């Protein structure tokens, strides 16, 4: 530890010294390669390419290797990454969800370098929200640089259709359950869900509304009994909400995009999905935010921002450490965040980015950025912020137990078990 601190202090001193060297000299001193490991390809590829282009314009001698492994949420990339890390071949830097997916897997395994020096040099402790810094931290160190922010607890709808059916977006789940029969009578699915993970995604929004932000945090701190009355209430509410959904019909065969399509078509009324749905509707479907689609915080979670964030870290013992540090510096800068996020459809993690610029950010992003600066920030379960990987994986079993039994008691028993086994919440 002492040794490590010494090294990081030394590095910090050297970095500060480097600041006095003219910028061009610094750029020229970097050469060699840098391998960036991520799961951004396809729709998300251009955003990463923009960042790489920006990096190359500053450090033309560095050959950037874009090692992207496709698959949403990194389902495949994370497996490849693990075999590479276990095999002693870490990529120079890799994409990881900020929070427990980073700390619970890699930081506790002592495979990441502490980036506190970088945060101090760049003044990032003031430009990223405190809740986010907490998620990136473990025992006093900060371990990755967040690039973007997505919001998980958003409810999407089609304003024109809602007007047609004569309903309004519900403020609470009780409101939703009250309006549910009306929607069903119109021959419309009140709430559309898709394949397994989107059901978990819905659950975290329902849980957040029943427990509140404090209860949600208490749960992850191990202070809320996972088998107690509150958690059973979560599952009971969730069960009622599911009864108003297409879970018993074709949910399992829908991707999240297909679920979103139902909202646009008007065959379903509401959908709870992360705000990448906004990117999909704007970019792929060509809709105008506020006209083609409407949004609000998912019922009962107004004023709470259930976040997830992509970040990049510095594995221990990489070949091109200096190149990576400059890459991370770029990621955390206003310039880097404003280059990346408009293309990705996310909002910058920095609160001082240029989100007021309507050329860069659309109406949805601007409203999300406003919320990001004001709301209480809590971490997402499904997307690796609040839950470690084992919990995130085993939670699927808990969900299956609930779907098979619809028994809140049996489900919470299982939840209690995985809480303790994974150590995520107990």
């Amino acid at each position, binding site marked *: 530890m002492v040794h490590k601190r010494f090294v990081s202090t030394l590095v910090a001193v050297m970095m500060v010294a480097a600041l006095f060297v003219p910028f061009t000299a610094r750029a020229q001193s970097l050469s060699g390669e840098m391998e960036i490991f991520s799961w951004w390809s396809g729709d998300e590829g251009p955003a990463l390419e923009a960042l790489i282009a920006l990096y190359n314009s500053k450090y033309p001698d560095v050959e950037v290797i874009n090692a992207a492994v496709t698959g949403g949420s990194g389902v495949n990339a994370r497996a490849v990454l693990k075999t590479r890390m276990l095999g002693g071949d870490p990529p120079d830097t890799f994409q990881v969800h900020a929070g427990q997916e980073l700390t619970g*897997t890699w930081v506790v*395994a002592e495979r990441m370098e502490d980036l506190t020096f970088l945060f101090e040099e760049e003044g990032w402790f003031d430009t990223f929200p405190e809740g986010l810094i907490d998620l990136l931290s473990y025992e006093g160190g900060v371990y990755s640089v967040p690039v973007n922010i997505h919001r998980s607890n958003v409810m999407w709808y089609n304003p024109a259709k809602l007007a047609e059916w004569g309903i309004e977006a519900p403020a609470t789940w009780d409101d939703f359950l009250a309006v549910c029969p009306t929607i069903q009578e119109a021959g419309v699915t009140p709430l559309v869900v898709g394949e397994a993970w989107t059901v978990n995604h819905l659950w975290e929004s329902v849980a957040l509304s029943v427990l509140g932000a404090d209860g949600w945090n208490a749960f992850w701190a191990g202070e809320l009994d996972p*088998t107690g009355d509150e958690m059973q209430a979560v599952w009971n509410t969730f069960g009622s909400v599911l009864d108003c959904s297409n879970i018993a019909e*074709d949910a399992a065969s829908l991707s999240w995009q297909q679920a979103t399509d139902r909202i646009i078509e008007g065959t379903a009324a509401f959908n709870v999905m992360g705000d990448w749905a906004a990117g999909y509707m704007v970019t792929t479907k060509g809709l105008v935010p506020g006209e083609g689609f409407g949004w609000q915080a998912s019922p009962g979670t107004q004023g709470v921002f259930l976040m997830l964030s992509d970040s990049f870290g510095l594995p221990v013992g990489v070949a091109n450490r200096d190149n990576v540090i400059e890459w991370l510096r770029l990621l955390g800068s206003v310039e880097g965040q404003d280059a990346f996020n408009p293309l990705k459809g996310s909002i910058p993690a920095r609160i001082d980015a240029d989100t007021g610029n309507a050329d860069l950010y659309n109406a949805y992003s601007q409203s999300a950025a406003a919320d990001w600066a004001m709301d209480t920030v809590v971490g997402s379960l499904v997307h690796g912020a609040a839950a470690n990987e084992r919990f995130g994986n085993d939670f699927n079993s808990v969900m299956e*137990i609930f779907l098979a*039994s619809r028994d809140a008691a049996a489900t919470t028993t299982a939840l209690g078990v995985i809480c303790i086994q994974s150590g995520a919440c107990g």
Partner: protein
Amino acid sequence: MHEKRDVLTYFEDFIDSRLFRYIIGGVLAIVGILLLVASFAAPWLDVPEASIEHDAHYQVVDVPRLAARAGLREGDIVVAVGDNLINGESDFVARTTDAVNHVYLSGKTTLPVTVYRAGETRTLNLELPDYRYAFELAIPQTTIDPANVNLEVAQLDAKPLVDPEGTTLSAMDIWLGSSDIIPTLDLQGFVKGDSGFGAVRFIDRFLILIPLGGLLLVVIGGLYLSSRLDAKRALAYATMVALVLSLFPFFWQVFSTGQWRSYLLDNFEREKDVAAIDSDLVMAYNINQQPIFFEVVGRQGETAPNIIDATQDQLTNAYHNVAYRQLALVALVTGAICYLLVTLKSEGMIHNRDQLSALVMLSPSLVLLGIFVYGFIAQTISTSLTNWGESRARPALKEGITKTYVGLQNYQNLMTDITEFSFRSSLINTFFFTLFFLVACIIMGFLLAVLVDQKVRGEGIFRTIFLFPMSISFVVTGTIWGWLLQQKGGINILPEKLLGLKPLSYRWTSSDRIIWGFQWSDVPRYLTYIGVALLLYSVASFGYQHWRRGTRYSRNWGILWAVLGAFILVYALGFWDHIWLPLDSPDIDKINGGYGYNTALSGILIAAVWQMSGYVMALYLAGIRGISDDLREAARVDGCSELQIYRYIVIPLLRPITLSAIIILGHISLKIFDLVFAMTGPDNNSTIVPGILLYTQAFRGNRFASGAAVAVVMLFLVSLVIVPYLWTTQRSEQKS
């Protein structure tokens, strides 16, 4: 013809010579004698007392995780000593619903104590003057009311632990508590006896294997020396004995943990008296959760004799470093090399240059196969017996983490743990999927083959069309069929689009309906019934045949078989209850109707059958073409109808093809991953299969040991299909 005598010939003569026999037989016998001598001298077993850490004192505790999992109820107060509850890091778990709630703890001088109750946790650090002292935690009665969560834990005076007769425990004692000392404690896995406590001493019964192995080697060597055993057999036996001996530390390490656990708990749950487990092997856990074997040697009131004990690691190291293992390795290497030589000689391969060079040419691929297939299978099995990724205290991806062997714990978890619901679903899904996939592919393939065989025009085109799906990747098939089989699209809206009828609403891949549902805890019973019925049938038919022959000798055999059958019956019934499935988790059956044939598999079956039935057609077509027309003509002349020709000529002759098809399709369906992943994704319990579960558990959930266990189960299932096939083909090859 006079043979040319070269080096190899002399070598062959040497293998046949007496000198060879004397040398090898002598080596085996000497190694055996050395093992015998060494095991009686046993200098390596004296683990010096000084090497024992001061805090390595032992108490009998349950595996806390099991206790808490099985035992916790609302309103319970759980006291956990140690860093955390349940996951194997806690030293001690007590559960009580008693109104007074005095809980006595001991074991370490500093105890972080956590008291859990619904929604409430209190942690305090207790300072004990000595591990022999216990603390009494008084939990006020008001807190028993679940509505009142105002939990207070009072720390009372430390009291020295004494036995009922007043003897204070001495520093090296290992104590087994009893209900006399701790009257209000309802401990899981604690000895509930009346005789106080006894001093216990470590003994390892497995050590008897060493002199036994030595004796066997002496006997084998002697028999070989005196020509009562031929070289091949003697060397084979010796090699096997040496293999067991040299692998022994590994077995000891692996199976001393998981398997014996249930044995021990079983005894405790029956409130066995400490006195009643007289000179029995008792296993307890030390504070590091390492199991220790004890033999009860002292009784209440007796003076505790000297106690030799050690942690598991110390013993394991001792085993690894001792001379006997090197001796066993010498015997192993000698035996194996000589066995190879003798076999080569007896097969005439040494003299035959062609065969020898063929062997040399083959050896690189044999070595590669040995490492990359069989070596990795062995590594996977070994991983599945560890706790890699199961222990919170050891991050799965840390470099150089220690992986502790836990025996069959992972397998037991998969079978019984409430959170492993998905694994059990995957087993059942695989069963139904394989069954229907095989039946459908074989019927479809056969019908297609018969149709194509009807000398139709453009046969080649049809053949290509039917075979073509096989050339597509399962991922592509899965994606396209996934779209086709959506509930509100694809096939379901065809009637509407084409004929203007009402669209179908069948949920091909998204159904959650389960037919032929059953409870998981019934499975062992059904399996037992089936197994016992098969066994009884074979015993009965065997016995009956002997009985009928009527000779006295064979009648005795019949009786023996009947007794054996009855014994197995009794054993099997007890087996499921006590060993394989203790079903310590009553929660398992809370999931009502979760197991059975899930109709969402239908969609996947359609896609799989679509893809593979063309292949079966090709197999059958080749088979049908191989049937001589003479046979058909002869049958027609005898007045057979076309149907009868198929029934009595074609189908029986195609039996080997059917077998091949079953093998090929069977292992595809048991290992299936990509098709299901593409059609319904991971985490979809209705259609989950072991391959997907293995992937998510190991590479997403970081539970590598559990994932390896799933992999081993898959390997076992596939080998159920493959091994009988290899066996029959090898037998038929030998026959021909």
